[in-house]
């Protein structure tokens, strides 16, 4: 489990940030994206994927959440 921060970039897309490793990557897809349920599996553009426990959609970004690593990006 790691603390991550999800923020919005200028283009409106979501950006994943892992402070511990200074890893910044665009989020390609988010599993749940409805007002009641938001989160689930995040697929990153670098090939990695993380899981965030679904929560009601946050009122504003960025938000810090706990995430579990599912598949690591190559390194």
């Amino acid at each position: 489990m790691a603390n991550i921060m999800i923020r919005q970039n200028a283009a409106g897309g979501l950006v994943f940030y892992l402070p511990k490793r200074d890893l910044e990557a665009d989020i390609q897809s988010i599993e749940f994206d409805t007002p009641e349920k938001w989160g689930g599996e995040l697929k990153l553009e670098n090939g990695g994927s993380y899981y965030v426990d679904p929560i009601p959609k946050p009122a504003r970004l960025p938000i810090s959440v706990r995430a579990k690593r599912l598949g690591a990006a190559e390194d």
Partner: protein
Amino acid sequence: MAALTREDTEALIAEVLEVYPEKAKKDRAKHLMINDKTLESSKKCITSNRKSLPGVMTMRGCAYAGSKGVVWGPIKDIISISHGPIGCGQYARAGRRNYYVGTTGVDAFCEMNFTSDFQEKDIVFGGDKKLTKLIEEIEQLFPLNKGISVQSECPIGLIGDDIEAVSKKAAAALNKPVVPVRCEGFRGVSQSLGHHIANDSVRDYILSNRDGQAFETTPYDVAILGDYNIGGDAWASRILLEEMGLRVIAQWSGDGTLAEMENTPKAKLNLLHCYRSMNYISRHMEEKYGIPWLEYNFFGPTKIAESLRKIASFFDDKIKAGAEAVIAKYTPMMNEVIAKYRPRLEGKKVMLYVGGLRPRHVVGAYEDLGMEVVGTGYEFAHNDDYDRTIKDMGDATLIYDDVTGYEFEEFVKACKPDLIGSGIKEKYVFHKMGVPFRQLHSWDYSGPYHGVDGFAIFAKDMDLTLNNPCWTKLTPPWAKKDQAAEKQAA
């Protein structure tokens, strides 16, 4: 000579790595890359923020350097105690030339060295009592300080002193922030972790101190983050922002004060110059206070204009018009500088090896002067820095992470740059090799280099260094004998 081609550069890297043992070669190869502008991410090409190899000459610093030297040191009304043996504080004292307005020793303390001067008995019996006494003495001798930070040196972590408890007690007794900073030098691989630790301690002990207190705001409040006022940099940046109609409410941390830092959450936009050392606190403020942050670059006219427009795009038409007016006002001045120096510098090649933001930020300024940056590298960057560098550098240029003394010399011998920009540890090596050199950490005791005023000084300094007649006098007379004899014979 034209820049090296991709194949040449590859061959150069292979040749340079040849002397290392197998394992070291494999490791170092990951830290060297040839730039390819089409790349979106640096991750596959370069590894960064890893432990330096034992046995090579690295130019990195330590976590204490990142925290005390970079982030905390320049805050003028906070006294930063170098807690531990005397050397760390004394040799890091006032070396970074963070300018400030104030009377040193009365209401400003950057250039002074406060240290607990650890002795053997403090290591054996612990230094907490000494720290308590030191804080009391500081309060008595320098009552105008607004706060105290305790910057731990290596032994504090090793012997397990509880500086948090001492700080907490002292803060209650003095009714001032006393901030324990766990920036022992052995933490992390370079000064980079020190920046992070310092940011976290600012977040925990300072940032929210004035939440809920009244503050007279305007819609145009901005804060300058990550500008350490080296040689007056932050002032040269600040006047541009103020001229376009913004109100700068805080400077982090060059010429900054505790009050400014506490008021930063009231800003409308955080302007981030050094991404590496202050992105942590910017991200935190974005999440907690909803303040957007923006990276900008005030080196050279092209980047200044670009950045001013980018900053203005966050505000209304008044600021946008202000930005255009500022650009229009200073363009003739900048053009004059370029007209004067470009003919003297055109086509010259530069190699850089610095830290933080400069390996990518100054590229634009060199290009404005017609110079070409053929190689660049960071001491302590992470991959997000390299992502940003790829776009700024030309194709097939050399990029090196945590370059070793040997590699850097070999690269210089092969690329034959006309100018090198790096730090004091490299300076005299290259002087002896006969290559013009500028220190880009402290601007070689010159500056400012940011902003419009800075660009004129930057151009002048580069010219003075590069075209200095001393570089033609490097061959001693006895080595010139052949030429003289030839002349006589002719």
